């Protein structure tokens, strides 16, 4: 597989994944760009992996989780544009406003917890694969998810009158 074929096939999915991780189209674009530049420059190494797709997703996730290692966050923060993290598609029904609360609560989670939620409930990956992407034990993934859900449920309960 060449880099071009890989990008043709996977770029859209990676962008969707990055949107779920970051909650923001600009940050998602920066995250994907930064990762894919490294993918392109090191394509031979990426192509040698058993599954280049999984390898790249792992790169992108690490880049997101471990922000100190990457430079993308700094650039995003310097961008100085209003944060559109909670600007969901417009729908004026009251219950939608409530549901979009979920999106802003997600933004408050630690990155690693948010990543596990995205991998489990958006990408629908089994725990073993999530553990591999995050480079941790399966037990850690489970406790991460349960802690994240607890946080979200607490927020939910508090938001209910």
């Amino acid at each position, binding site marked *: 597989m060449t880099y071009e074929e890989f*990008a043709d096939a996977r*770029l859209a999915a990676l*962008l969707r994944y990055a949107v779920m991780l970051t909650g923001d189209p600009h940050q998602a674009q920066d995250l994907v760009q930064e990762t*894919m530049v490294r993918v392109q420059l090191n394509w031979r190494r990426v192509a040698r992996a058993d599954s280049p797709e999984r390898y790249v997703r792992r790169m992108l996730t690490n880049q997101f989780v471990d922000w100190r290692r990457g430079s993308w966050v700094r650039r995003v923060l310097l961008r100085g544009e209003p944060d559109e993290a909670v600007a969901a598609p417009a729908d004026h029904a009251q219950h939608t406003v409530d549901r979009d609360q979920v999106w802003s609560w997600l933004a408050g989670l630690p990155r690693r917890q948010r990543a596990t939620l995205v991998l489990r409930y958006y990408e629908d990956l089994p725990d073993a694969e999530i553990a591999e992407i995050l480079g941790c034990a399966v037990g850690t993934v489970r406790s991460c998810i349960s802690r994240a*859900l607890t946080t979200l449920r607490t927020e939910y309960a508090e938001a209910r009158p």
Partner: protein
Amino acid sequence: MTEDDLRAAFARHEPLTPPTGPVRAAIDRLAARRRRRRQRLRVGAAAVALVGVLGVGAPQFRPGQTAVDDGTTLMADPSGAPVGTLNVLLVGVDSASGSRPPLADSVLLLHVPADRSRPYLISLPRDLAVPIPGHGTDKLNAAFVFGAGDGRPDLAKGYDLTRRTVADLTGVRIDAGVVLTYPVLRKLTDAVNGVEVCLPERVRSIHTRRIFPAGCHRLDGAESVDLLRQRRGMPDGALDRDRNAHRYAAGLVRRAGEQGVLTDPVRMSRLLGLVGPELTVSWSGSASLPDLLRVVPALESTEPVGLDLPAGGNGRYLTLDPAATPFLAALREDRLAGWVAANPARVTRLR
């Protein structure tokens, strides 16, 4: 709240996904730029700076000749200290050994005005497109390779072609020059017990992962070399590295001043003797070398002013900025103090 709510929240936000076309193009553009920059590690301009300032004295060494080990040469001949302006060319090269030819990636001009007010360190961008005598137009750093040749590179010849290129470019006479490598820099730094460098922003080494936080730090030889190699990841790339070189040079001179090296010929001689055998130096006949050294104590201030030759461009080559014309005129006519007063924004902040 259920897991299905979570699934629904993700699904609802899928329309936020940006289109792939522009992202794809941006990736290709960034990757191309980074590939060009990647080529190899380069010498910190820095290297240079230091000896230049430290010693305009460095030129007393001939290539391969070991250092003078007492102060007599330096103190001799109290009569003729040179008058008029002085220009010393400082060329930093990466590893001179091995199969690949060395590149001159840091080219600095140390300018001492006739009134001896203070030294100016002018970095010439290595990617600047310039006419190279006998080789058409190419990047400034190519002059060193053209001169030195492949196979067994000759640093003195590489220096010489660089010198002629710079003299044509700037229109000033080059009185002396030094070729510096990393080992020289490291030894010098350790010899003065470390150098204080003040950084305006955090720098992270891509080579050792060492973090240099913003602010002032005392760096030892290995740390200094590490800092001066950093170019990738900085907002202005090689330009920022040149500025760190300015800061390093200022710190080295301060340090040498504190230890009395600058005014004590015996100490200076000992220091230079430490690195002398590894320096490749050259000079033109306009002033004798011990005379050149006498300029150092004559300076009112040894704190250098860091300047970049105004140049710009986004492509492979940089070209001279319109502001370069008055700048070079000021340099030739020894009016840099006035130019700096009129263009304070172009001075590198050193501390």
